[in-house]
């Protein structure tokens, strides 16, 4: 039993949610309680297994661990090939942690509970597959698998403008996927393999292609593949100016959908950069790193300004993701230019940690927005005011999570921002200095939200009409808060794992 578990740990984590989705399929759709609890309990198993994974993972060991491999599509040399390094491991933990929390946060969903829960579980498999895949085609398949459930979640359970938002979401991401598919196929055809570890060895230095592609010179193929990847991932992160789908999708998605969207789906793009773009295209990455840094800087500044300009609480939080993910991209750009130097290492460490951290606090923020929306049925910041007097517990939690997202030292956001800024400063001094404008506005928009919701004279309309955060909701937010505090206070346990992985990659 134990042996089987160890040998197939990744497969188990990956497909247990799918199995759970199948189980739900056979439950009657009227048994709402059973559906909810089954979804929650079954989503806790992958979490438990990933903690086991974390515990058994050897940071000082090989790059990819828990590798599993089976023939999948022999005709085109594509295998079912899984494995995790320290970076993917961190993301796996994030995904398996956020999914049960999102499911628990969705216990108040009343319409179509069965379909909703099934979609969530399928979404988890899709996301996990991207992080675990060591085969390019498999990577692409899971990438697409993760896309579809989110489309339906927004489209069926979203807010007023859900049709527009869901289509915009699918359009943008499909556009990106097209690039991903193109690049994947080009690489597959030219090299005759989709195996990632092998590609990492041969692709960057490839001079004589295995197969010819329309007689195109190899350099052209590489350039096209590079840009196709970059656009696919840039849309997902999102890098400015491919970001306008995000505020709409995040705002219209149901609360738990926003949690996963901001918490995990955005990380897929950044993960793609780290996993595929940087190692496969070191030369091109280095060449265009400056542009990427410039776009990151713009995302930081304009994301911050965009958030500051909102009057819709959820939209404000959505824009904050652009601002925060900008630091991830800045870190990646630094690593692209500086490579294995100390600056590059620190910046990439910071970028990965920022991905994890943003997963925690953005999910937390969206959840808290959802909590107040459930009660007030409005997200208009100007409709609130002085609620701290009525909701002391909720208010304090909101301040806590806001401060984590603002980058208050002592909480998690600061550590990763500090690392990115430290790494980027000697490499992109000007971009780093300018991104401080964005960091200033991070403070401005965070305080604006607190100012409008909690502080000031009490808006008497809410007296007696708004209730304090309840027990279920506390259970959702508490684990996130604990992690924010622990990482802020003592980041070594997680950064050490990331740091060693980064060291092995470059």
């Amino acid at each position, binding site marked *: 039993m134990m042996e089987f578990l160890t040998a197939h740990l990744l497969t188990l984590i990956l497909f247990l949610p799918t199995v759970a989705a199948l189980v739900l399929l056979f439950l009657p759709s009227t048994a709402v309680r059973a559906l909810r609890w089954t979804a929650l309990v079954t989503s806790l198993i992958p979490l438990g297994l990933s903690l086991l994974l974390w515990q058994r993972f050897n940071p000082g060991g090989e790059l990819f661990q828990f590798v599993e491999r089976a023939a999948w599509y022999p*005709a085109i040399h594509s295998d079912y090939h899984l494995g995790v390094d320290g970076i993917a491991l961190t993301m796996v933990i994030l995904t398996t942690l956020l999914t049960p929390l999102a499911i628990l946060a969705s216990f108040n969903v009343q319409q179509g509970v069965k379909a909703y829960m099934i979609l969530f579980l399928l979404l988890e498999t899709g996301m996990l597959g991207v992080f675990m895949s060591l085969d390019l085609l498999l990577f692409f398949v899971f990438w697409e698998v993760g896309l579809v459930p989110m489309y339906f979640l927004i489209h069926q359970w979203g807010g007023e403008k859900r*049709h*527009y938002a869901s*289509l*915009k979401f*699918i*359009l*943008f991401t*499909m*556009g990106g996927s097209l690039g991903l*598919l*193109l690049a994947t*196929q*080009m690489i597959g*055809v030219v090299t005759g393999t989709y195996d990632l570890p092998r590609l990492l060895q041969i692709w960057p230095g490839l001079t004589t292609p295995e197969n010819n592609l*329309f007689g195109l010179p190899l350099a052209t193929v590489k350039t096209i593949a590079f840009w196709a990847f970059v656009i696919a991932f840039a849309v997902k992160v999102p890098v400015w100016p491919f970001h*306008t789908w995000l*505020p709409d999708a995040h705002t219209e998605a149901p609360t738990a959908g926003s949690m996963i969207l901001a918490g995990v789906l955005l990380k897929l793009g950044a993960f793609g950069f780290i996993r595929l773009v940087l190692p496969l295209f070191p030369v091109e990455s280095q060449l265009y790193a400056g542009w990427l840094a410039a776009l990151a800087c713009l995302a930081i500044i304009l994301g911050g*300004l*965009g958030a*500051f*300009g*909102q009057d819709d609480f959820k939209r404000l939080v959505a824009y904050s993701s652009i601002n925060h993910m900008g630091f991830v991209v800045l870190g990646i750009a630094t690593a692209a230019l500086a490579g294995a130097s*100390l*600056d590059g290492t*620190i910046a990439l*460490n910071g970028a990965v940690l920022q991905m994890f951290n943003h997963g925690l606090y953005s999910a937390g923020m969206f959840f808290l927005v959802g909590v107040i929306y459930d009660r007030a049925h409005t997200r208009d910041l100007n409709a609130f005011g*002085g609620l*701290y*007097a009525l909701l*002391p517990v909720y208010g304090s939690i909101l*301040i806590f999570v806001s401060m984590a997202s603002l980058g*208050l*030292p*002592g909480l998690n956001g*600061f550590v990763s921002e*500090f*690392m990115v*800024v*430290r790494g980027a*400063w*000697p490499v992109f001094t000007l971009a*780093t200095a300018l991104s*401080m404008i964005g960091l*200033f*506005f991070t*403070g*401005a928009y965070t*305080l604006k939200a607190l*100012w409008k919701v909690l*502080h*000031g*004279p*009490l808006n008497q309309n809410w007296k007696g009409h708004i209730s304090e955060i309840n027990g279920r909701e506390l259970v959702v937010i508490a684990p996130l808060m604990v992690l924010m505090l622990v990482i802020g206070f003592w*980041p*070594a346990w997680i*950064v*050490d794992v990331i*740091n060693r992985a980064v*060291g092995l990659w470059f």
Partner: protein
Amino acid sequence: MTFETLVWLIPLAPLVAFGLIVLFTHPRRGLSHWTALVGAGVSFLASMILFVRAITTEGLAENPMQVALNWLPTGNTWLKIGALIDPVSAVTLFFVAWTVLMIFIYSVGYHNFGQPVGDHDQPGLPPHGATLREKKGGSRRVPSVEPMYSRFFALISLFAFAMFFLVISDNLLSLYIGWEIMGFCSYMLIGFWYGKKSARDAAVKAFLTTRVGDVFMLLGIVGLYSATGTLNYRAALGDPAVLERLATTDSGVLGLSLAGLLGILLFIGTIGKSAQFPLHIWLPDAMEGPTPVSAMIHAATMVSAGVYLSIRIFPLVSAGWDGGTLTQAMQVMAFIGAFTALFSATIALVQPDIKRVLAYSTISQLGYMIAALGVGAYVAATFHLVTHAFFKALLFLGSGSVIHGMEHGVLHSREEIDPQNMFHMGGLRKKMPFTFWTFLIGGFALSGFPLVTAGFWSKDEILSGAFGGGNLAVFITLALAALLTAFYTMRQITLTFLGEPRSKAAEHAHESRPVMIVPLIVLAFFAVTAGWAGIPQKFPLLGGIIPNWFDEFVGSTLRGEALHTAESYLPLITSLVVSLGGLYLGWRVYRGVQKGHPDPLEKPLGFLYRVFYYKYGIDELYQAVLVKPAVWLAEVFTYRILDRLILDGIVDGIGKGAVWLGMVVRNYFDKPVVNGGGDGLSRGVRRSSEVLRLLQNGRVQYYMVLTLTMVVLAGALITVLFIQSGRLP
């Protein structure tokens, strides 16, 4: 106990208290304040033990007490953070521990512990008082307990943690952590009565103004870290070879050396935190917080932290300075400091609010310290930091006691007056004797009353340092500021305590409870005696009776720097003249102010009075040139124009283009082909009309077609690729 235990105990005790209050004890007021007091008490004891150990250790500067832990892995090495007790942190720890403990005790009384719950008090607003029914019938109004009593103690405990953590830190990163957590606490505490619009706005203003400084400071920190590979004070700022390298490397910015650039970036952090011009605007508004908070933020801790940072980075700022011409970074400091000292003293001259006078006076005194650092008077700046912390905490707590007394009077008289306006006070010396005498001591210390007060010795040393270094402009500016300081201090004392009461409330004011008075007495003690630790050796008559311990102890931190003490008596005479002269003038001008009289300065100063009164219009200026454009940039430019109009316009344009393509395909290909069929004819027409109707429904549907088109294109591409490579089975 070992050094490690003691030094970690100092910040952790209040942190634990914070956690306990938040999680467990908050429903019970007494338990909460005891938890906070025990936390602060433990820190106090540990600090005193370490202080005694520090001053009895030979050669502490060369071999400080320290401990460090691996905190963050960076490539093959670790970023360590740890604790360090050297002379500078030892003396800072001393005054921080004392003032913090006193403020904690005082807060129990200030927030009316033991008083009844107010009639209509609600969280987020200051207590309004309670009505007590008496046995004989009738009722009287009494102060009511603060509705968020426990929260206050939780927050000041967190604040104490951050300050202690900052002081014991051995590196700039953990200093920054403490620095920012303090900033957060000050935000929460200034906005403690968040239900008041003014308090809410002041809190946001404080946080954002200091954040301007903080983001520059962050750049300075990462810059220093990049340049030296460490943030440890001793490794990065105590190594002459490293400093030499930084001082001789060109930064490429404005002709500054790397040391100069990093020094200035870090110093901008101080400008924000210590409320120096041009980032001083938050501090006066921060008076919206409860008075103990003002004392904590404006005296003992947070604003001192800014100067403390500047003291720490002094080696960097002065790198390459040989005692002659000041480095560029030092010039910046000297200018900002001296200008702020004079500038805010002029504003303090005309403020009617007792706490605002003190706020501007704080800005001015911090300017003194910064100017002192700028001219290289390192020890004098540290000395003034210590003495100022004691007497300014004393003055703030004293003013709190006055306000408390006045509020009591207001409750009694039911007048509609501002209990903080000094023109409604007068004659309080008889009603509040303890407050009066301690306030007098604090005020005289602030004015630099000769010989007996601590402020005299530290201020004299700064003037002497400025004069001795040949920085006459700084010397004159500071001397002028000192004159104004003495003047507005005496104005404050005269208006508040002397003469006759100018309102019913002042007539009925009464002395505060012992729990508030005892801290005043303790602080008054230090406001006098702290100065004796640093009497210059060469001072006429008194010099040498008590050894100049402070100079030796703190001065040893900085090896080999030239310390100027003037040979001339001119600075001494100047400080005597300005302090006594200012005090006398203040008393002369304000002793006769009657009820309803305007400020006697209003006429003679004329236009200048209005300039001072309206604080040079800087708030309005910032509102117009910075805040409004920023809001426009965010709401209109970034969101509406850039994202909504341009970027979404492009996206929607692509969508429309795709729809047009779809229409073309349908009208000129699908329709003829489908229509050609027999049965398919009617079905085709119906289907296409359905689709067309959908298309006209809204742009959302248009995307569907594009999506389909893309899938078709992608499929085609894949097929082609596979055929090309000959892989299709």
